């Protein structure tokens, strides 16, 4: 009898343990964390996920909205959504969809995950050496820094998170860090990345589409410029300008090689789109398709066209010294009235054959996958020019700035003479020239609003950019009033985030809008 009992209890025990096994099911189409991070390929797959996150609509669209929409480049186009309309009419509220930073934090989390777990793979996969690890880490650090850089420019203070989110045991309610703390982290990460980043990857798609030494420098230069560390900015720009493999594309070929074919000789870092995985929906929606009779959601504001005291391409001959036949005009804007403004040509219109002796691209159907260029050589040249103007240690700084401006200017003004220093003899006029040249060169590339914000940061005065964006504002006092407050130039934190995270404090302008603005 006793024996039977022993047998029975043994059987029961066996049964129960096997029950637990039976109830252990692992997903079939996914890998669980415990089985992941075993090989080099798994590590690179997650790294690729960081880039993949950037090319999703959520990120690219925000790079465009944050970088362009409030600037003087953009007016309402066709079928623009309500959230964008609200931004244009300077009535941004915390419920605005573009106040959602989630897509960038999702990339940041991928980077954090990679940086946390990839070092473990070194012990598990013999092929994955320390040096391989470091080059990949350089990419992850750079992408994370880039994301934070966008966030800091759009929101100013944001939560700084450098550890991965793994389980519900973590407390996700984190407060904002100051812009200073975030910028310090960005700079620190980029300097580390710079040590290990590869000069190139062999293939063109990787060299332009992944983080190289030049890409790190370009981002770092941009960060220094934002942070007003002009000498450091110049240093980083010089590193890039010293690389002979980079070369400005000839003026006639810019549309074809830089924007249509992509990965041109002047490209430093651009996000790669392809037909099968990810279309560049943001560009096609906002700027439009070449074949479509409709313009995109955005248009080029009409007020920039009539000759006025300031327009990038057309101005009264007496007021400016630059040529009036800049080919960037027709490659950026198509003066066909359709709706409230003009159709945007850059990225969108590539169906011209020959206009003004400029050969453009024959159509491709449909052009849905243009790469989104983050940094290219002309940008770096003009960043350096801007930094030099700000340094203004002596006249040579301004002169070298002018010669940089001339490089980009001359390639797009085939018949013009180079700009002369006597026309731009002081810091003020040179500063304006660089601004104008950046405007012409980088129009619709997600740079303009940040260029304007740098002016605000330098002058600590929001009204300093009213001369650019003023014409866009309606006579409504309120709009100008709002645009005169620095806090109002940053985005609000999305309300849903404030609601669920008690440690987040709304950005100052949006906490309670002054009641004096009533009526």
């Amino acid at each position, binding site marked *: 009898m006793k024996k039977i009992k022993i047998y029975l209890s043994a059987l029961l025990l066996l049964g129960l343990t096997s029950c637990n096994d039976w109830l252990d099911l692992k997903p079939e189409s996914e890998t*669980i*964390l415990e089985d992941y991070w075993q090989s080099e390929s798994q590590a*690179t797959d997650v790294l*690729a996920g960081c880039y993949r996150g950037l090319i999703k609509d959520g990120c690219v669209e925000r790079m465009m909205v944050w970088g362009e929409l409030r600037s003087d480049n953009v007016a309402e186009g066709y079928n623009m959504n309500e959230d964008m309309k609200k931004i244009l009419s300077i009535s941004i509220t915390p419920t605005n969809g573009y106040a959602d930073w989630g897509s960038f934090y*999702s990339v940041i*989390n991928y980077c954090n995950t990679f940086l946390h777990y990839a070092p473990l793979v070194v012990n598990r996969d013999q092929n994955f050496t320390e040096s391989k690890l470091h080059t990949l880490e350089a990419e992850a650090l750079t992408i994370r820094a880039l994301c934070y850089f966008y966030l800091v420019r759009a929101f100013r203070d944001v939560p700084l998170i450098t550890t991965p989110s793994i389980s519900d045991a973590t407390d996700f309610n984190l407060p904002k860090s100051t812009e200073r703390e975030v910028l310090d982290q960005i700079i620190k990460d980029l300097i580390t990345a710079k040590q290990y980043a590869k000069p190139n990857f062999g293939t063109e798609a990787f060299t332009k589409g992944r983080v190289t030494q030049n890409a790190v420098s370009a981002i770092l230069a941009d960060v220094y410029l934002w942070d007003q560390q002009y000498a450091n900015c110049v240093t980083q720009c010089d590193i890039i300008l010293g690389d002979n493999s980079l070369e400005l594309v000839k003026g006639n070929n810019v549309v074809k090689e830089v924007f249509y074919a992509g990965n041109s000789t002047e490209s430093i870092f651009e996000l790669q789109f392809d037909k099968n995985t990810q279309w560049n929906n943001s560009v096609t929606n906002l700027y439009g398709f070449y074949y479509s009779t409709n313009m995109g959601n955005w248009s080029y504001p009409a007020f920039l066209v009539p000759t006025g005291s300031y327009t990038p391409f057309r101005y009264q001959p007496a007021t400016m010294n630059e040529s009036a036949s800049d080919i960037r005009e027709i490659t950026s804007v198509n003066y066909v009235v359709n709706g409230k403004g003009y159709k945007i040509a850059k990225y969108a219109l590539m169906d011209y054959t020959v206009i003004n002796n400029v050969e453009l691209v024959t159509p491709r159907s449909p052009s849905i996958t243009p790469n989104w260029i983050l940094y290219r050589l002309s940008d770096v040249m003009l960043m350096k020019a801007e930094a030099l103007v700000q340094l203004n240690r002596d006249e040579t700084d301004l002169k070298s700035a002018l010669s940089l401006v001339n490089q980009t200017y001359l390639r797009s003004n085939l018949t013009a003479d180079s700009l002369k220093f006597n026309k731009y003899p002081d810091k003020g006029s040179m500063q304006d020239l660089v601004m104008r040249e950046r405007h012409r060169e980088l129009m619709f590339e997600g740079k303009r609003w940040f260029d304007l914000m740098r002016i605000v940061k330098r002058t600590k005065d929001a009204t300093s950019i009213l001369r650019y964006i003023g014409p866009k504002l309606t006579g409504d006092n309120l709009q100008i009033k709002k645009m005169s407050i620095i806090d109002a130039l940053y985005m609000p934190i999305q309300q*849903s985030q404030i*609601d*669920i995270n008690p440690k987040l404090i709304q950005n100052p302008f949006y906490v309670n809008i002054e009641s004096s603005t009533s009526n």
Partner: protein
Amino acid sequence: MKSNFAITFLLILLLFPALAVSQKPGDGLTIQGTVSSTPDGPIIGASVTEIDANNRVVGGCITDLNGHYVLRLRNTENHIAINYTGYVKQTRKIGTNKTINFVLVENTQILNTVEVVASVKHSEGGFSIPKREISTAMQTLDMKEIEGLQVSSVDEALQGRIAGLDIVANSGDAGSGTSMRIRGASSINGSNQPLIVLNGVPYEMQVDPSFDYANSNSEQFANLLSINPDDIQDISVLKDAAASAVWGSKGANGVIMITTKKGRSGPTRVEYSYRYTGTVQPQGRKILNGDDYTMLMKQEFFNPQQSSSASNVVEFNYDKSFPNYENYNNNTDWVKEVTQIGNISDHYLTLSGGGDRATYRISGGFLSENGTIIGQSNSRVSSRSYLEYRVSDRLKFTAELSYTYSNYNRSYNFNFVKNGGGDSPNEDLSILGIAYKKMPNVSIYKQDADGVNSNSYFKIPNTTTLDWDQKYLANPVALAMKAKNNVKNYRTLPTFRLQYDFTDPAVQTLRYSMYVSFDINNDKTSRFLPSEIVNYSWSDKHFNSAESGDHEAVSIQTDNNIAWSPKFSNEDHSLLLYGSLQTTEGRSNYQGINSYGLISNQATDASNQAYLSYEETGRSHWRSMGLLARMHYSYKGRYIFDGTFRRDGSTKFGDGNKWGNFPGISVKWIVSDEPFMKTTTNWLSMLAFRPGWGLAGNQPEFEYLHFSRYGNDGSYAGMPVEVPVTLQLKNLRWETSSSFNYGCDLGLFGDKIQADMNLYFKRTNDMLFKFVGIPNSSGFGVLNYQNAGSMDNNGWEINLYANKVIKVGDFSVDFRLNFSNSMNKIVQLDQKILDTYNAKYNYLNGSYLTRIQEGNSFGSIYGFKYLGVYQYDKYVAGSQDDAPIARNKKGEVLLNEKGETVPMYFNYGRRNGGEQYVFRGGDAKYQDMNHDGNIDELDIVYLGNSNPLMNGGFGTTLRYKNLSCNFSFNFRYGNKIVNSARMLSENMYSTNNQSTIVNWRWRKDGDITSIPRALYNYGFNWLGSDRFVEDGSFLRLKYLTFNYSVPKQSLRKLRIDKVNFYLTLNNLFVLTKYSGVDPEVGYGSFGVSQDFGQTPRSKDLTLGITVGL
């Protein structure tokens, strides 16, 4: 899989002895003889069987034309039995006989009045106890009670019949289901649907986490549609946890147990029934015609800016020079155009019969339905077979097989206005919803310059300057006729059962039974949106877009159990012990593709040459295991004790949380059986008390939650991508609900009047919350699940049944009544959840402040108090008092330092990012609760709750000879509904068509009305206020049925067994103050009933006939 092998092995083991033992002496011998009867001579086709000592059939044949038989014997020790319908069965021992002749005697005994005292048994699988001894809260509905009703689904039959079961139809669309709640909601955003158990096997559909059903609600709830009501014997509803603890983790929301009909031995019976139903859509709200609409629009555009250029919209101008003039000068009644008289025809054929050893029942039916909305149809082919074979008196084998094929043509639902994106309120996107919104001055068909219809549908051109809400709103007639949304469902459920008695069941029961049940459920969805309906350019993802999806799921459930009921020498004791091991294993996979820019409107499959917008696949695999022990003990048949213990294991939880224990205890004391109650037995046939307690559980819907998972996410520049896709849920636990139930059963006058009452207290702990928002700075937007908080559901229910309470000659009356009440209260909630749910008030029109508060009931509605419309714009004391100015508590006008009146503001200071507004004459007047001259969130008050104070039903059956009349009412009382459909049709804020009531709008100073002025995209005239919160109480005559069975005498000549005729009127009338079309509105988010005007339940009339042969 292992377990399945074991089961098969066991099966073989059990069957084999039967074969092995039969090899005994006597093999090869034959026996012969004739079978005859005295009056009729030789009997042809009588069954001759050789049976062994265990009454197991070991051989057999039938008699030939001469009544002769020859049978090869297995064993001469066996008996030979003759059986022929209509004659008394005979059995004789074979022994050494070589010839045995039988003379059968006709079975003509006439039963004199025989009183059979038997206790009705209630059986759940192998656990069978006398019904009188049930100690838990349970209610059973015999389908005979509702014979002849046109119910297309079980839930419709249950509606209003079970106390404590609240059933609300999701909508009147063909093929949509209902939402059911037993004893209120026990979970805030988990499922509240009860578990369905079909013949002892849980009948459920697993939802694949990666599979996002476009119409998930109706899919899930329409689950029951695949069981044909004709096949159902009875339905029991287990309400308290002591009863549902048997189902452990699955039973937290209560259990509905369905038993299907079985075969009965006897000659083959054929029964055919046919029902035809005509359905009519009830009259909804009246909407404006084209002329009134354009007039409203011109005012609506004029008012905000007070400018006539704003109201100069060419589509409203009736300007003949406008090229499209003819297409915009109509009075189209869109609602009439999209509705029709629907019909249902339902054929059902049943064959049943069997002999001593085997019984069978085979049924099959075909139902086809055309909805009351054009383009909706639904057809169903279903069949069910039940075969039972008794190998011996101890061994029984059963096979059940059901197959259902349904084909639904649904309306294509799509948010045209927002193009699938945006944060639009949950507007009604159905065909009917569109019909109510569509501009009535446009034509259905394109019209030429003379106003003659062409044969193509009119679509508002892309170039119009009209607002999005009209520009992109499809032509509802075109949408119904041209777009496709088809779901085909195939569901096969084979179940095999075996039952073996180790002992003679007449002495004591020691019974092993088992089943293996398969559920194969496949869905095929195909949708197509042709370009001729929509306005999008060909690059848009909705231009000629097609979707197709295949979802396949297979689950296998097994149950092995042993029931032992020992025989006590003292008959006062009775005991039943029961143990069971249940396993479930299932797999499902989903594949879907979505493409657009298809070349033609004809080839509508997503696999055609087109742009692929996305591809989806998903697979899932789940297992669970349950160990169950039950006991039932009764002493003297009046002291009863029941105990249940269930241990459930699930793959959905991580280590340490995999197993949950679910005990249940209940006792019953039948007072009326006590000797001291002897004096009252003549009128009090039953008085019993039954307290009980139990724990039940709930688990999340998804698998693999306790892992951090890495999944594929396409590629970047040719590099494959894998990223972490979920957060690991380390802390996830079972949701448990513990409930006390105090029940009382009452029977009067020999159970002529029966009543049962229940009082319950239920507390749900560790409530599961789905998709809990977390700061997205974590890289994730939500936690898929979290346990957070507890909630109480307390209530009572009363059920009364009077059987033949009035009986005069051939006339008799039955009466039944039930009502119940459930109060719900949130006891405790995690702060994070509260923060997620209790978002700040957004200061937008149309939104109610939603709150979940500890100590408050779920489903509460908060908003402003609506006081009507400001009659004047400017305040003039004495003559124009009713103007928008601030007043203090006493109603005195407030003045500022300059002595001027202070205007009434909305959201002064722009809180929470909202707009600020100054009220004007003709604007909505809201009560300024705190008298600060500002309408803001501080003026928001509690407006009511969506939980009914009471719901239930009552009904009567009247019988006279062969005619019976049966009617049933159901009611809900005291629940509040947010009538969003009315809100959207009275707000005069967009270019959507409005209801005729807006003709009473405020137009000029001095107008006295309760409808504010029209303001296009301006003002705050439709804030969430009590203006749109209505009492949802109603009393519905759910059905009225007449049933006539033709007298048997007149049928006998025609050799017909029975002929019945039915006439049913469904949903004949509803008494309600609710202004919407149908007061039966399901529960939305936060448990608030919000009526978006879904297709109302139709009124219908059914004619039916049943013929039995």
